[in-house]
């Protein structure tokens, strides 16, 4: 048998069904008697609804029902809740305007849902949706930060003056000002972190089903966290108690954050299934995904770093405006605050940091966490600013990083912005990446490229992130309205096979494989004896789901804890059978053994005894072998590393090609290197996408211009390079597995390395920064801005 323990690149057990067309995605689910829902959405960024005429739609062939916002309001259906409350500088709570499931009174972004049409077939529902006549009084929109902050800007919510959701800060302003007052040099950077549209390949979908006999509801949905959806939708929107609401998230085709949130369509199909007494299915067209899935990023920032004469960082000052979109999505408020500004120390010893963040409502799709969520914005800012520091000091980019790294001897390291890093070795990841990328040989490659007529540049990022969220008490004190522990239930079946029920959810990460590998190693049994179950609130005790690279660090730790409970109970059973003291029983390689003897019982013998308790310590111990653990992490985990990117620019076209990309990441202990490598490569691809290709574009009024895959540049195979991935590990010190997380490092570490490389390639053209995405048009413009006019022109 091939090695399948910790550290083996075990092939994925998910793959056979996906490669055979036997996956079970939400849109593949068809319930008996199912109807189809199609939403009528606002074509306007901002308008008053003056009337909705549904008569023609209701009379159309096959139509079972048409509902509008007033129908839900009449049944006291709540708005979509926000899961995180931020407080302003003065201690008052953020503005939290209502987010109706279907628009009431006004629409606030293109795509805001206004009505739902439910019919026998999707085609009939689409036809009838065309017949819903909505009268709008069109108002001026303000989709961008700049437009929404302008004096006299149209208000997104009448009750939110200046469109300001919150005005928040963190850090020590006086200490930071003092650092600047005594600075030898100051580097300053204004930058935009471009708005992205997640575009998981599977469009969102939902099927609601109501059992008229039992009164039970079931929702099948494309979610990263079915229990969270049950909690939010049940408690706040539809008022269905948990025991009457089951949420199933089956195979999910990618999430990247966009499938964390509770969306209107989930509530609509669930509620409507009881109204029409038949299952109701909704599946997004990609066009709808563009205008209804939560978008990501969208910051405008001014940052300054104060330095001493040796290039040591003394203070960092940051002012950020963050676009929230038209409504607060589930976790939106925490992204530009606690997932962003708390990361501003990065890998550096900057002693004083002060950051202000103003969150702004605009006439655009709500913005929330997207792969990295706040940390890509932080790492982009820091790493780009550090490059500016190097320029300001006339110092090498690598050298200034070395001078400011938190030394590996300094852990645990308390930053000035709340977080305490547990472990890391930034010199080690830097050295490994410099070597793997042949940083030293770059100038020769630049010269060779020049001879071919190409501009070649190299960029570096030595980033840090925080994931594995998070200690419940800590996030609670920061405004989270939920705990962020994770849950595992382990059932050792009578004949010794093991079923693990996890509250995390896999939507591409390969949990069924990695977790089976982890538990097989823990119990000393072959992997095929372990099954992983996820994604169904009826089968799994509870869970907070998968986001923030938390599944292994938090969910895996919960499994480890539950396994420890199993082993502890097994020891007592073994002690009884072996007539020994439980304290003398060791568990190793799947056997309970009396220490120092050859007397042992295999796990399967113990489990059989537990379920057939004839010879059993029944007075002290219950039968059965099943345990549950809720694991609340002690801290975030802190993956970090070094990404180095090399680009070549064609000066005639401005096209930037990534020719080399090298990542060396510290993700903590690696369970399955093949899967880790794949996660990093996928993250880097999204980072390169952000840096070179992708951006969401609204026109001045708020019409979505990049609203299809023909208009929004998704990275394709020929836009991307091979991505070399390595790891250099320090263990997490506060979870039992020593793991940190790998899902987001690629998207967090890569954009500054790519932009650094583009700027380096263009350094003779008088620029020190370029905003993302560095499109051919932008790059060509820079190359040609100062070119002398040719004689013939």
């Amino acid at each position, binding site marked *: 048998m091939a090695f399948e323990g910790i550290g083996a*690149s075990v*092939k*994925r057990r*998910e*793959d*056979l*069904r*996906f*490669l*055979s*067309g*036997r*996956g079970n*995605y939400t*849109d*593949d689910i*068809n319930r008996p008697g199912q109807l189809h829902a199609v939403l009528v959405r606002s074509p306007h960024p901002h308008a008053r609804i003056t009337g909705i005429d549904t008569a023609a739609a209701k009379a159309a062939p096959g139509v079972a029902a048409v509902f509008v916002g007033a129908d839900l309001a009449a049944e006291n259906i709540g708005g979509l809740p926000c899961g995180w409350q931020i407080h302003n500088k003065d201690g008052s709570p953020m503005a939290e305007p209502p987010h109706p499931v279907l628009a009431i009174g006004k629409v606030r972004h293109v795509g805001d849902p206004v009505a739902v049409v439910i019919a026998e077939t999707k*085609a009939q529902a689409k036809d009838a949706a065309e017949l819903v006549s909505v009268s709008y009084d069109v108002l001026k929109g303000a989709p961008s930060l700049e437009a929404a902050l302008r004096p006299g800007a149209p208000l997104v919510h009448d009750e939110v003056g200046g469109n300001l959701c919150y005005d928040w800060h963190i850090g020590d302003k006086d200490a930071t000002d003092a650092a600047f007052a005594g600075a030898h040099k100051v580097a300053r950077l204004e930058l935009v972190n471009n708005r992205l549209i997640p*575009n*998981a*390949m*599977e*469009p969102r979908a939902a099927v609601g089903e109501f059992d008229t006999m039992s009164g039970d509801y079931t929702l099948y949905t494309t979610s990263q966290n079915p229990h969270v959806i049950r909690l939010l939708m049940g408690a706040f929107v539809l008022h269905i108690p948990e025991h009457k609401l089951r949420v199933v998230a089956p*195979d*999910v*085709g*990618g999430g*990247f954050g966009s499938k964390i949130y509770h969306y209107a369509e989930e509530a609509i199909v669930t509620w409507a299934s009881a109204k029409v007494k038949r299952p109701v299915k909704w599946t997004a*067209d*990609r*066009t709808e995904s563009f205008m209804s899935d939560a978008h990501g990023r969208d910051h405008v920032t001014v940052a300054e770093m104060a330095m001493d004469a040796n290039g040591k960082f003394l203070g960092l000052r940051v002012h950020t405006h963050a676009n929230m979109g038209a409504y607060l999505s589930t976790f939106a408020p925490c992204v530009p605050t606690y997932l962003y500004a708390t990361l501003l120390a990065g890998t550096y010893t900057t002693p004083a940091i002060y950051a202000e963040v103003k969150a702004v409502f605009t006439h655009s799709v709500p913005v929330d966490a997207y792969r990295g969520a706040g940390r890509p914005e932080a790492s982009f800012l820091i790493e780009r600013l550090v490059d500016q520091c190097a320029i300001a000091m006339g110092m090498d980019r690598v050298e200034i990083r070395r001078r400011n790294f938190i030394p590996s001897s300094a852990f645990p390291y308390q930053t000035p912005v709340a977080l305490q890093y547990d472990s890391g070795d930034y010199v080690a990841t830097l050295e490994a990446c410099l070597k793997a990328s042949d940083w030293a040989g770059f100038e020769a490659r630049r010269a060779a490229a020049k001879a071919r007529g190409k501009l070649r540049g190299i960029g570096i990022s030595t980033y840090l992130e925080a994931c594995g969220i998070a200690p419940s008490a800590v996030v609670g004190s920061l405004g989270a309205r939920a705990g962020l522990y994770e849950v595992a239930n382990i059932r050792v079946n009578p004949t010794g096979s093991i079923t693990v029920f996890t509250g995390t959810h896999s*939507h*591409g*990460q*390969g949990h069924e494989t990695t977790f089976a590998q982890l538990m097989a190693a823990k119990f000393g049994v072959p992997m095929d004896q372990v099954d992983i179950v996820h994604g169904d609130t009826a089968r799994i005790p509870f869970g907070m789901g998968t986001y923030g690279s938390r599944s292994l660090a938090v969910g895996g730790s919960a499994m480890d804890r539950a396994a420890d409970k199993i082993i502890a109970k097994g020891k007592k059973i073994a002690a009884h059978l072996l007539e020994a003291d439980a304290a003398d029983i060791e568990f190793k390689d799947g056997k309970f053994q009396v220490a120092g003897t050859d007397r042992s019982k295999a796990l399967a013998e113990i489990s059989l005894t537990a379920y057939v308790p004839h010879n059993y310590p029944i007075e002290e111990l219950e039968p059965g072998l099943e345990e549950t653990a809720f694991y609340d992490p002690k801290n975030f985990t802190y993956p970090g590393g070094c990404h180095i990117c090399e680009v070549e620019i064609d000066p005639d076209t401005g096209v930037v090609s990534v020719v080399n990309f090298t990542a060396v990441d510290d993700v903590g202990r690696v369970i399955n*290197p*093949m*899967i880790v*490598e*794949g*996660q990093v*490569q*996928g*993250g*880097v*691809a*999204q980072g390169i996408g952000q840096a070179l290709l992708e951006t969401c574009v609204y026109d001045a009024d708020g019409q979505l211009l990049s609203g*299809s*895959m*023909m208009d929004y540049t*998704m*990275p*394709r*195979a*020929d836009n*991307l390079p*091979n*991505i070399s991935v390595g790891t250099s590990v320090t263990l997490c010190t506060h979870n039992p597995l020593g793991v940190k997380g790998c899902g987001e490092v*690629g998207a967090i570490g890569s954009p500054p390395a790519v932009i650094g490389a583009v700027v380096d390639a263009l350094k003779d053209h008088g620029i020190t920064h370029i905003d993302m995405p560095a499109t051919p048009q932008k790059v060509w413009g820079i190359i040609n801005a100062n070119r002398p006019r040719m004689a013939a022109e």
Partner: protein
Amino acid sequence: MPQVSLKVNGKPVTAEVEGRTLLVDLLRETLRLTGTHVGCDTSQCGACVVHIDGESVKACTILAVQVQGSDVLTIEGLAAADGTLHPMQEAFREYHALQCGFCTPGMVMSAIDLVKKNPKGLSEQEIREGLEGNLCRCTGYHNIVKAIDAAQQVMHGKVKELPRAAE
């Protein structure tokens, strides 16, 4: 309603469809062959690629009535009757060329046609350009390219066994 008769994965099928029904809807909704996916509405993503008479076609871009009399192969029909995977399926598994699995059926069907049309073999760059019509959001394509390169060696008879991925 018009009637359409065709072969799907070797089996004869007759169905009544609307004139506007797309092939992908016939496959997914009428025949319940849900392995063929719909990832967009502008024929960009390629999640719905099937083979029609041996050619890869985006099933969202052709009407069901247009395939009258054709032989359609979907991802469900790719493996041998005994369950042996096609070398391309095997290569995707070996090289970790899929994560969420949603683009995978279309990606595999496109890749097979791409390899078949290039009997002299494809360079890495040619594979990347050949995947122009298929989007993947998870993998960054790195491992998809490696899988196709390995599969083409088996499909062209250059090697008997699929080259194994490095550990």
